[in-house]
């Protein structure tokens, strides 16, 4: 549905700041009907990417194709303006026009867009989409008299009413409070998937990205670091950056020895055995999720089992986070809230080899 090839964009230096290479050759594909997330920390280029796809920003070079129609191609000097790309977009601020009613806001793409549509049909389609987002009763209300969640629904209805080829979502949940955000996350995905609209979603929140998307691309410094399903990237990070960004993890640097199947990694907490990655590495960083670590009573032997002492416990309710000193280092662990552990208690930590992932020592620069 959407193909992006080698997109670059550099913001020229200004008197008060150096040039910013926001995009350095980004390529990715979104399949028809997929819910795709662009994830990354602020300044990684994801918003620039979205603006380029929307046509609100002109890239320096590369190619963007939507459903076999090129909308941008630097080689041919082609740049279709935003209003002819047949998109729907939900902005971060929602951009609900405060001088119009909910109905007029939603009717705008039909009334002033490229298609010529009669008044009766506009009426019918706006009612239908407002019902879809459960705002049927609010049609005549002025936009400023809406709550944050309602504004978000108006923005969504406005982005869907003209049946766009592609729906763009720019951090649509970041302006909602935590509870509403959890509810909207599920609702938004269900709604979009039920309509079968291809969706590109930009966020800096890995929980949103994982919870909502079919596929995601992780960006950093203007390049895509890794892309795949949320499960893939969480379980098989290729860089320390990807591991760290996708959730809490223990990143333990070490020297690698051995080959074929199982490797041995010399680390501050001891020698850890783990499966070999595709390429041989003399040094690397071991990624182990706190949830992956098993905790046992003291003095238990086994593969990747180490004696440790509980050093810190934070009781957060649904989970208990802890830190266990092992050898010359320490590991973060997640403890079952119903299991009573005391400070300084002696325990054994087990790092199951199949849950240990070895990544290159320099995170993020490989592509």
């Amino acid at each position, binding site marked *: 549905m959407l193909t992006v090839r080698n997109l670059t964009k550099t913001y020229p230096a200004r008197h008060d700041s150096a040039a910013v290479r926001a995009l350095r050759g980004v390529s990715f594909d979104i399949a028809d009907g997929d819910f795709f997330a662009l994830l990354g920390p602020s300044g990684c280029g994801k918003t620039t990417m979205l603006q380029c796809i*929307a*046509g*609100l920003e002109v890239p320096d070079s590369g190619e963007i194709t939507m*459903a076999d129609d090129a909308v941008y191609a630097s080689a041919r000097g082609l740049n279709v*303006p*935003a*209003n*002819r*790309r*047949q*998109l*729907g*977009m939900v*902005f*971060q*601020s*929602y*951009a609900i*026009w*405060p*001088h119009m009613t909910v109905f007029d806001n939603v009717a*705008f*793409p039909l009334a*002033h*867009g*490229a*298609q*010529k549509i009669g008044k009766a049909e506009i009426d019918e389609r706006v009612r239908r989409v407002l019902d879809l987002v459960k705002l049927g009763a609010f049609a005549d209300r002025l936009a400023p008299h809406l709550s944050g969640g309602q504004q978000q629904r108006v923005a969504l209805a*406005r982005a869907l009413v*003209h*049946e*766009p*080829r592609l729906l*763009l979502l720019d951090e649509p949940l970041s302006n909602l409070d935590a509870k509403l955000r959890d509810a909207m996350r599920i609702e938004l995905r269900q709604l979009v998937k039920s309509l*079968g*609209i*291809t969706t590109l979603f930009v966020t800096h929140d890995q929980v949103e990205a994982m919870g909502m998307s079919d596929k995601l691309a992780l960006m950093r410094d203007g390049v895509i670091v890794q892309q795949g399903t949320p499960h893939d990237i969480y379980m098989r990070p290729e860089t320390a950056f990807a591991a760290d960004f996708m959730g809490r993890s223990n990143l333990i640097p070490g020297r690698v020895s051995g080959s074929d199947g199982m490797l041995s990694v010399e680390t501050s907490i001891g020698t850890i055995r783990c499966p070999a990655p595709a390429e041989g590495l003399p040094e690397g960083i071991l990624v182990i999720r706190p949830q992956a670590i098993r905790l046992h009573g003291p003095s238990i032997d086994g593969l990747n089992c180490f004696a440790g002492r509980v050093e810190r416990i934070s009781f957060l309710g649904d989970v208990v986070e802890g830190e266990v000193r092992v050898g010359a280092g320490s590991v973060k662990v997640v403890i079952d809230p119903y299991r009573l552990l005391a400070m300084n208690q002696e325990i054994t930590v087990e790092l199951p080899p199949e849950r240990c992932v070895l990544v290159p020592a320099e995170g993020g620069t490989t592509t």
Partner: protein
Amino acid sequence: MSMKTIGHSPAWLRLDQQKVVGIVLLVVIGVLVLGPIAVLLRSSVAPPNTMPLETLGITFGSFVAIFQHPATPTIIGNTLLYAAGSVGFGVIIATWIAWLTERTDIPGKALIRVLMFAWMAVPPLVIGFGWILLINPGNGVLNVLARELFGVQGALFTIYSFWSLIMITAFAVVPTAFVMIAGLLRNMDPQMESAGKVLGGSGFAVARRITLPLLTPGLFSIGIYMGMAVVQAFDLPLIIGLTAKIPVMSTRVFLLSVPDNGIPDYALSSAFGVVLLAIALLLMWAYFRAIRSGERFRTVTGRGFRPKPTALGPLRWPAFGTAMLYFMIMALPLLMLAWTSLFPFYRLPSMESLPLASLDNYHRVLDSALVQRALVNTVLLVVLSASLVMLLSSLVAWFSVRGGGRFGRALDVLSFAPTAVPPVVMAMAILILYIKTPLYGTVWVLIIGHLTIYIAFGTRTMTSALIQLHKELGDAALVSGASWATSLRRIILPLVWPQVANGWLWVAAHSARDLTIPLVLMTTNNVVIASVVYTMWDFPDVPGAAAVSFLLVVALLIVVVPVQLLASRASTRGGG
């Protein structure tokens, strides 16, 4: 998703309304702004006694003549002394009243604010005429009263002195200075003053030791800004300064290009114009330096904090009295004009004369063909200037805020440039540029003049309005499939409508009261109210001039005051 059919338009049309509008805009603004400036520079090096655009000769003789002439140091000295003196007194009065209204519990704050805004609408020309009637050495009312009541010999005051010119100008700049200083006080973090009070300082000690030092950088930059305005001022130096034989640069430029008798010397007046422009540029540079260093002193924090006003106690009413004293001084010349307009011949105000008062002068002036023509011209000038200024400024602001890049910056700089050019210099340059075209002698040349002068203000207003408007509001319209023009018309314009209306009013009011452009470019056909008032006064038809002046003031107040009332009510409600 199925493909939708889109309405097809020809490729060249699709090639951006936006680009086409942008290029047209750049050309229009370029001609408006760069044309006169280029002509000014050209004329200043033209040989004397030639039409500057009809010769190729280049000489620096005019500059040499200016700097060799014995009167030149006096003129420049006068100009600077005039600006420094009137701004000095004006800022002191304005700071006092602004501090009272913003930081103390003085009664009648709303009244003071509205009166200040109302005074901004009164043309300095009219105030000047009123003062002449009040304190001219012969039959000025105050002088006659002093003679009769206290037996003063000769004249107590005289309008025709440097002091009078400075003080009258000082009173005239107070309203603008008040608005700027009140804004400064409102933006100042009140916690600094609260700290002073909590630590035991009395109200006046806090004002003197904390408020005033914190305000100093801001006051300094406001002072320079006002100085820039006074150096460029033309009407008061014209009607008071010329009789008093206090030539300043702006009147010098005027007399050289529109002499009472003899041939205009465009080369010499342009050279004078360039010197005046240089002084204005120097002040502008100083102003930008001052606000930049002022930024370091910025004490603006989150809104919402309103300082507890200093309690003046028993001094509340006396303090209120000092503010009212200022308004009474300002009202005197207007009352004098109103009185004068009621009698066929000038007579001193007295109870005995009152039964003779009539509206005959008003009937007479309204029946005169000249005044009728001036009325039509004024309406045309005011409505067209204000509308065109706001149209151009809105577009320029859009390109400079949203368009970005070199193009937007070029438009921004171009439209700001006229700020540095004194209106009388601009008027003269427009005169030289258009004198051989059919536009000369029509209202259109006046409209061009006001467009050039007021585009800077309009652009500032619309730029700040657009900066506050979230970019995504416009983007959302584009992504929804609307064209650029539709997004401006349906989304952007309705959202910035209050600022457009406000800017329109400002330009309209200034266009109606401006004397510089109409006087320099005046012919028998394109007279407007301001130039008619001046001509009648000069003729002299003092009662007629008084009647027309009074009508002009009333018309301006009717337009400006209700809007200010609304705005001030809205701002009190908003807690700002």
